[in-house]
C-alpha cells in the first residue's frame, strides 16, 4: 500500500508511473527549483520523495502554487483539466487555439495560433517545474488536487465556462433513461450504461455526426444552446429530471433534453455537457487566449533628467519629513491606542505638523514604522517613539537614509492606504494599527515598479495602463473586492503609484535612476547621492533677524541653528528666525553669548547684522540675572533693585515672595511655577542647582528600548537560499533511499499488535506511529484504492483510541472516513492521528 502502487491502471510502460517516481528521476537542480518555487514544501523538510509528493499534492499547497501562475500558464492548466487525464500537448494546443481547419464559434476572440504554439512548451515546463503537472508531453497528467480545483463542473464552471462531461453528468441516471437518450439521438442501443455514455460522448466529439444531429434541431433550440456555449453552462428548468422522449418533445427545450444535448444537473437545472460545448465552440476551451502579456505603452515621456531631479528633490523631502516627524515625536510621543495604532486626533496633529493631508501623514508614519525608526515603547502607558535605530539613521548620509526608507517600503506588507477605511466591524482602521497588513502589497509594489522600469527612461503609465499586465501576471491574486467593485490589487496599484511619487521612487510619474538601480539589485544610494543637493555649511544672515539656508544644511549645523532660531518656512531652503525666546532657548541649553556670536560669524556668508548681535547680547545680558532655585525655591539676584522690582510686582503675588536678603528672595511656590510666572512677567530667570550652578535644561528626547522593524507578514515561508535548498534536496534523497524498507517495518509493525475488536482507550505506546507525511500519503492512497486502515487517534479530550476506518476523503487537514467501531462516517483531524497501519481486509 504505497503511493507507488496508486493508479496502476493508468500507468504506461515507458513513462514514470507516479509523480514520486517522476520526481525521483529529476535532477537535484530541478528539485531545488521546485522547492524554491514552492517554499511551503520545505516546512518541515520532507523526509523522502513520497512525502514530498504527498505534500505537494495537498489541496492547500497546490492552490498556493496555482495562484502564482500567469494567465496563460493557468489557461494551459485549465485546458488540461477540461481534457481527459493523460492528454497530449497537441490536445492542449487544440483546446487553446482551436483545432486547425475548424471554424471557431462566432463568440470566440481571434487567437494567434503561432503565439500559442510558441508559448505552450514554456507554460508546460513551468507547470512541470512546479510539480503541478507530470508525465511526458504525450501523456500529461495534472496533480490530482489541481485537476480537482480546475476541472469544470456544473456547480463550478471555472474560467473556461465549460460543464461536466457526459459521463459525469449522467452519473446516477437510470440505464433505461440512458437508452432513451441514445434512441433520441438516433444511436443504436447498447448493452450497458458505460457503453451508452461512451456512445453519446462519441457522437458529440465526432464533428460530422454531431453537425448532422444539430441540423435537425429547431432554430430556437440552437439559440438556447448558443446561450450556454461560453458559460455558465447551466440553465434553470423546473422538473429538469423529468424523462422526455423524442416523441414526447414539444418545446425546443424538450427537444434538447430528449436527445441528451442538455442533461439534468440537479432537481431544477440542466447543463450543457462539456463535449457538446467544445464542439459548439469549435474546440476552444477559452473564449480568449492570451499567450503574451499585454504590452504597456508609456502614457507620456518625460525628460529623464527632469525625472531624476524631481525624484531626488522628493527623496530629500521624504527623508526630511520623516526626520521632522520623529524629532517631534521624540519630544512629545503620542499614546498608542489600546487596540494598537494611533488615535485619529494624533494623526490629525501629525498631518498639521507636517503640513500635509492625513492620508499622506499616515504614509509617512508607516514609512518610519516600516523602516524600524518608530515603534511603541512597550511601557505600561504605551507611546509611539523613535527607536534607537533612528539615532543611527540620523548619522547616515541622506542618500543612505533614503535607501533605508525605500527598501523598508518595498518589502513592507503594511499598507498605509488602508488607514481610515472601515474594518470588518465598520470601524475606521487606525493609522499604524494592527489591521493594515496585506500580504499582497509587496508583490504588487514590485510588479508595478517592475512594469514602470520596463518602460523606456522617462516613460510614465497610470494605473489604467498597468492593470492589464498585472492581472495577466497573477490572475488569481487580486485580493478581496471592496464595496466599490475594485479589488485590493487595484487599490494597491493606485497607492503604490502615489507613494512612489511621495518617496521619490518616481518623479513626474516615471521611475528614477536610483529606483531602477534598487530594483535591479544595485546601489541606489550611490546614484541618488549625485543628484541630491549637497549639504551646505553656511547660511545667509539678514538684518530682519532671519537666517536663510539656501539649501540643505549639514546635520550638526541645522541642529545648532534649530536650537537658537525658529524655523519659519521650509522647502528647498529653510528660513530661520531669531527671536528673544529662541536665543534664550539656546542660552538655556548651555550656550553662551560668545559661543553664539562665534557660531554665527563662522557660518554666515554675510557679515552678522548688528541688530542680531544686539539681540543676542540683550537676551544674554538679561539671561540668568535672576536665579531661581529648585531645591529651596528661592530667588536671588545680585541687583537688589531688581528683586525689589519683582517683589513689588503685583503679578508675583501668587508666588508669595519674601525678601530674604538684599539679593535673595524666597518663594512659597515650586520652582517651575516660579520660573513661569517670572517669565510671564517678562524676566529671564535661570534655574539654579543646589550647588548654585546654572541648571542646563534641555528637553529629553524620548526613545523606545531597542526595537526592530516590523517583520513583513509572510505571504508564505521565507524564500529559501541555495544552501538550504541543497541541504533539503540531499536530505530528501537520502531519506528516499532509505525509505522503502523502513516504512514497511513502521507501517507493518503496529499492525501486528492490532486489537481484534472494539474501540478502546489505549495505552499511548500501543498506538500506531508514523510520520505525519507518511500518514497523509497512506491515507490518500487508501482513499484512492478504497483500502481499510487502522489508525491511532487522540480526541479533543486527549483520550487515545484505535479505530479501523475506511477513508473517504482527505482534505483541508481532515480525513472523512467510515468508522467501523462507531458504525458511522466521521471526520478525523489529521494532526490528531498518531499513525496508520494496514489492516488485513477480512473480505
Amino acid at each position, binding site marked *: 500500500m504505497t503511493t507507488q502502487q496508486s493508479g496502476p491502471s493508468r500507468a504506461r510502460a515507458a513513462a514514470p508511473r507516479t509523480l514520486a517516481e517522476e520526481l525521483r528521476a529529476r535532477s537535484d537542480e530541478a528539485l531545488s527549483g521546485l522547492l524554491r518555487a514552492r517554499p511551503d514544501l520545505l516546512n518541515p523538510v520532507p523526509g523522502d520523495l513520497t512525502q514530498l509528493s504527498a505534500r505537494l499534492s495537498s489541496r492547500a499547497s497546490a492552490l498556493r502554487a496555482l495562484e502564482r501562475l500567469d494567465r496563460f500558464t493557468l489557461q494551459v492548466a485549465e485546458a488540461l483539466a477540461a481534457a481527459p487525464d493523460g492528454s497530449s500537448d497537441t490536445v492542449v494546443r487544440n483546446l487553446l487555439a482551436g483545432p486547425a481547419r475548424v471554424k471557431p464559434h462566432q463568440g470566440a476572440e481571434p487567437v494567434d495560433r503561432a503565439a500559442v504554439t510558441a508559448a505552450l512548451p514554456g507554460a508546460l515546463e513551468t507547470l512541470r517545474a512546479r510539480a503541478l503537472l507530470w508525465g511526458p508531453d504525450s501523456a500529461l497528467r495534472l496533480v490530482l488536487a489541481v485537476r480537482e480545483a480546475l476541472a469544470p463542473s456544473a456547480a463550478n464552471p471555472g474560467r473556461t465556462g465549460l460543464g461536466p462531461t457526459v459521463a459525469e453528468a449522467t452519473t446516477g441516471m437510470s440505464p433505461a433513461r440512458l437508452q432513451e437518450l441514445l434512441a433520441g439521438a438516433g444511436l443504436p442501443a447498447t448493452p450497458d450504461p458505460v457503453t451508452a455514455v461512451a456512445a453519446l460522448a462519441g457522437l458529440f466529439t465526432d464533428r460530422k455526426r454531431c453537425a448532422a444531429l444539430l441540423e435537425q434541431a429547431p432554430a430556437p433550440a440552437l439559440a438556447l444552446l448558443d446561450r450556454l456555449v461560453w458559460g455558465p453552462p447551466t440553465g434553470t428548468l423546473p422538473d429538469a429530471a423529468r424523462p422526455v422522449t423524442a416523441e414526447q418533445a414539444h418545446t425546443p427545450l424538450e427537444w434538447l433534453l430528449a436527445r441528451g444535448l442538455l442533461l439534468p444537473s440537479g432537481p431544477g437545472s440542466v447543463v450543457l455537457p462539456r463535449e457538446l460545448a467544445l464542439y459548439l465552440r469549435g474546440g476552444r476551451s477559452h473564449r480568449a487566449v492570451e499567450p503574451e502579456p499585454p504590452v504597456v505603452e508609456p502614457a507620456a515621456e518625460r525628460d529623464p533628467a*527632469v525625472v531624476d*531631479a*524631481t525624484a*531626488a*528633490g*522628493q527623496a530629500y*523631502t521624504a527623508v526630511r519629513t520623516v526626520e521632522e516627524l520623529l524629532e517631534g515625536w521624540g519630544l512629545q510621543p503620542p499614546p498608542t491606542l489600546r487596540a494598537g495604532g494611533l488615535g485619529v486626533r494624533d494623526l490629525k496633529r501629525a498631518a498639521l505638523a507636517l*503640513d500635509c493631508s492625513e492620508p499622506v501623514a499616515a504614509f509617512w508614519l508607516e514609512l518610519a514604522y516600516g523602516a524600524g525608526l518608530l515603534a511603541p515603547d512597550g511601557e505600561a502607558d504605551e507611546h509611539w517613539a523613535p527607536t534607537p535605530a533612528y539615532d543611527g539613521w540620523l548619522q547616515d548620509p541622506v542618500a543612505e537614509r533614503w535607501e533605508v526608507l525605500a527598501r523598508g517600503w518595498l518589502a513592507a506588507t503594511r499598507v498605509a492606504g488602508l488607514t481610515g477605511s472601515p474594518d470588518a466591524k465598520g470601524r475606521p482602521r487606525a493609522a499604524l494599527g494592527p489591521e493594515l497588513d496585506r500580504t499582497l502589497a509587496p508583490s504588487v509594489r514590485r510588479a508595478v515598479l517592475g512594469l514602470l522600469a520596463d518602460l523606456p527612461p522617462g516613460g510614465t503609465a497610470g494605473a489604467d495602463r498597468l492593470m492589464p499586465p498585472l492581472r495577466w501576471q497573477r490572475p488569481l491574486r487580486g485580493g478581496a473586492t471592496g464595496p466599490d467593485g475594485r479589488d485590493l490589487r487595484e487599490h494597491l496599484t493606485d497607492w503604490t503609484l502615489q507613494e512612489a*511619487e511621495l518617496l521619490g521612487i518616481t*518623479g*513626474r510619474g516615471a521611475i528614477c535612476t536610483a529606483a531602477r538601480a534598487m530594483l535591479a539589485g544595485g546601489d541606489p544610494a550611490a546614484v541618488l547621492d549625485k*543628484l541630491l*543637493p549637497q549639504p551646505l555649511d553656511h547660511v*545667509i544672515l*539678514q*538684518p*530682519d*533677524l*532671519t537666517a*536663510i539656508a*539656501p*539649501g540643505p544644511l549639514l546635520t550638526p549645523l541645522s541642529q545648532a541653528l534649530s536650537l537658537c532660531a525658529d524655523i519659519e*518656512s*521650509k*522647502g*528647498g*531652503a529653510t*528660513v530661520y528666525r531669531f527671536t528673544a525666546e529662541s536665543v534664550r532657548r539656546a542660552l538655556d541649553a548651555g550656550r553662551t553669548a560668545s559661543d553664539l556670536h562665534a557660531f554665527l560669524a563662522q557660518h554666515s556668508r*554675510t557679515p552678522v*547684522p*548688528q*541688530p542680531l548681535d*544686539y539681540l543676542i547680547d*540683550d537676551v544674554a545680558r*538679561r539671561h540668568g540675572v535672576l536665579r531661581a532655585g529648585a531645591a529651596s525655591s528661592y530667588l536671588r539676584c545680585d541687583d537688589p*533693585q531688581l528683586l*525689589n*522690582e*519683582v517683589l*513689588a*510686582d*503685583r503679578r508675583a503675588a501668587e508666588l508669595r515672595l519674601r525678601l530674604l536678603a538684599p539679593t535673595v528672595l524666597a518663594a512659597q511656590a515650586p520652582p517651575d511655577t516660579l520660573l513661569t510666572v517670572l517669565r510671564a*512677567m*517678562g524676566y529671564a530667570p535661570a534655574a539654579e542647582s543646589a550647588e548654585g550652578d546654572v541648571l542646563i535644561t534641555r528637553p529629553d528626547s524620548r526613545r523606545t528600548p531597542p526595537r526592530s522593524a516590523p517583520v513583513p507578514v509572510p505571504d508564505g515561508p521565507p524564500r529559501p537560499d541555495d544552501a538550504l535548498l541543497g541541504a533539503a534536496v540531499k536530505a530528501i534523497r537520502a531519506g528516499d533511499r532509505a525509505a522503502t524498507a523502513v516504512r514497511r517495518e513502521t507501517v507493518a509493525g503496529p499492525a501486528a499488535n492490532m486489537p481484534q475488536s472494539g474501540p478502546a482507550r489505549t495505552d499511548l505506546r500501543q498506538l500506531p506511529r508514523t510520520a505525519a507525511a507518511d500518514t497523509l500519503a497512506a491515507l490518500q492512497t487508501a482513499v484512492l484504492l478504497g483500502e481499510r486502515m487502522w489508525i491511532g487517534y487522540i480526541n479533543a479530550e486527549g483520550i487515545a483510541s484505535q479505530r479501523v476506518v475506511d477513508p473517504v476523503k482527505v482534505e483541508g487537514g481532515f480525513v472523512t472516513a467510515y468508522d467501523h467501531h462507531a458504525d458511522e462516517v466521521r471526520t478525523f483531524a489529521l494532526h490528531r492521528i498518531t499513525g496508520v497501519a494496514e489492516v488485513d481486509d477480512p473480505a
Partner: protein
Amino acid sequence: MNDGPLIVQSDKTLLLEIDHPRAADCRRVIAPFAELERAPEHVHTYRVTPLGLWNARAAGHDAEQVVDALVSYSRYPVPHALLVDIADTMARYGRLQLQKHPVHGLVLSTTDRPVLEEVLRSKKIAPLVGARLDPDTVVVHPSERGQIKQVLLKLGWPAEDHAGYVDGEAHPIHLEEDGWQLRPYQKQAVEGFWHGGSGVVVLPCGAGKTLVGAAAMAEAKSTTLILVTNTVSARQWKHELVKRTSLTEDEIGEYSGTRKEIRPVTIATYQVMTTRRKGVYPHLELFDARNWGLVVYDEVHLLPAPVFKFTADLQARRRLGLTATLVREDGREGDVFSLIGPKRFDAPWKEIEAQGYIAPADCVEVRVTLSDSERLAYATAEPEERYRFCSTTATKRRVVESLVRKHEKDQTLIIGQYIDQLDELGEALDAPVIKGETTNAQREKLFDAFRNKEISVLVVSKVANFSIDLPEATVAIQVSGTFGSRQEEAQRLGRVLRPKADGHMAHFYSVVARDTVDQDFAAHRQRFLAEQGYAYRIVDADDI
C-alpha cells in the same frame, strides 16, 4: 540641480537671492503673480497667493508663464503639487464673466457650466441674480455688480468684469508739464491703470502718487471724485492739482466737515463720507451727486468699510486706488481686489530709491535705559498703562534733545503718540506742536513756516501720519507710536523720504526704552523696515 536664483518653498513663498546674476530677470518675471513680502538685504521673500495669481491672470498672464517662470529660475525641483495647484487656482479666474447684454443689461456668463451651477446654489448668490437666460447665462441686476464680484471672490471663483464703464460727464483736464515731467514709473502706472480700466497702483510714500492720480484724470478727461484720508490731505491734493494740471481753484471742490462743495473735481474725506447720523450715512449720496467719470481712492489700505459698501454700487465707473501697501491690517485685501480692482502697477521702494526719486534713509534705533525708580514704577504699572509709561519716559526727552542738537541744521520732525509727551517735548525744545486740536489754518501756517525753514523743528502727533507734504524734512524722530503698527511706521518713514534738494541722506530715529514693551513693539516695527530693505542700526543713548 540648476543654478537659479529662486528657491520655491513648500509654503508657497519664493526666496530670491538678489546677489545672483539672474536675480533682476527673475524678479521681473515673478513680480506679476507674487507679492513681495520682505525685501531685506540678501534674500527677498515673495508669496504666491490666490489673489496674486488672479491679479496676474487679470493682467493677461497665464498659468503656463507662471509655471515656466518658477521652473526656469528655481534652484531645486519645484514640487509638482505646487505647480498643479497654481494652474488650478489660475484656471478659476475668468470661468465666470460679467458682461453687457443688449436686452438684460448685465449678465453673468460662464465657459464652464458646472461652475455656474455651483455658484448659483450658493445662498449668497441667489438674491443677487435674476432669470436664467440659457444654461450658461444668468441675469444680474446692475446695482449688484460689485456685490456679486465680492461674493464670487469669496467663493473662490473670481469673475472677470467685461461689462465696461460709463464715460461720465466730460470735463477737460490736462497736465501742465512746465519744468517737470512725469517720471517713467508714474507713466507706466497710469498706462497700466488705464489699460486695465480699474485697479490699484502701489507706490511707496513719497514716490508721487498724487501725480499718478492727476495723470489718470488727464487721461479720463471727465468729472472726478477723489477720496482722501483727511482735510489736510484734501488741501494738499487741491494744491497739487492746481499746480500740475489745467484745473483752476474754482473747478475743484472740497467736501469735508467744514465745507460741502461739489464741483467737477471734488475731493472728499473718508471721515465725512462715513459720518453716521441716525443709522444712515447722509453724505454717501455724494457718490450720486454727479455723473462721475473717475473715482480716485487715496490710501486704499485705509478705506473704511462703509465706503467699500458704496463702492460696490459704483462698478460702472472707473476706479483708481492709490496706496503704498496692499497689506490691510483688517485683512480685507479681497474686497480691494473685487471692488476697486486688481493691482495694476507695483514698484518696490528700493528700486525707486535706486533711481533717485526717493531719498535713501538711515534708520537708527536709540535705546534708552530707564532709571531705577522708573523701572520699579514700570513693573508696578497696570498692563494697559505700561506702554504709555515706558514710551513716554522722561529719559527719552534728553535723548531727543541731543538728537535735535546733533541735527540742528536740518529740518527735523518729532513724531509721537501721546499728547502730554509731545507738549512736554515742544516746551523743552521750544518748538510748535501740531495735534488733533490744532486748527487747520494753524496747521497750514506752521507747515508753511517749516517748508520755508522759518522753523526747523516741528513736533507732530499722529495727525501728521498721513499725506501731509513736508518736503524738506530730513530728520524724523519717533518717540512713541501706535503699538507695533507697521503701516504707521511706513507712513512715518515716508515723511523723510521725499528727495532732498542737496541729495543728502534722510535720518529716521526711533527712541526706545530698553527692556520694556516699547522695545518689543519697536522690534516689530523695525522688522518691517528691515523687510523693506532698510538696514538699521541700534545705538545706546549714551553714545549720542
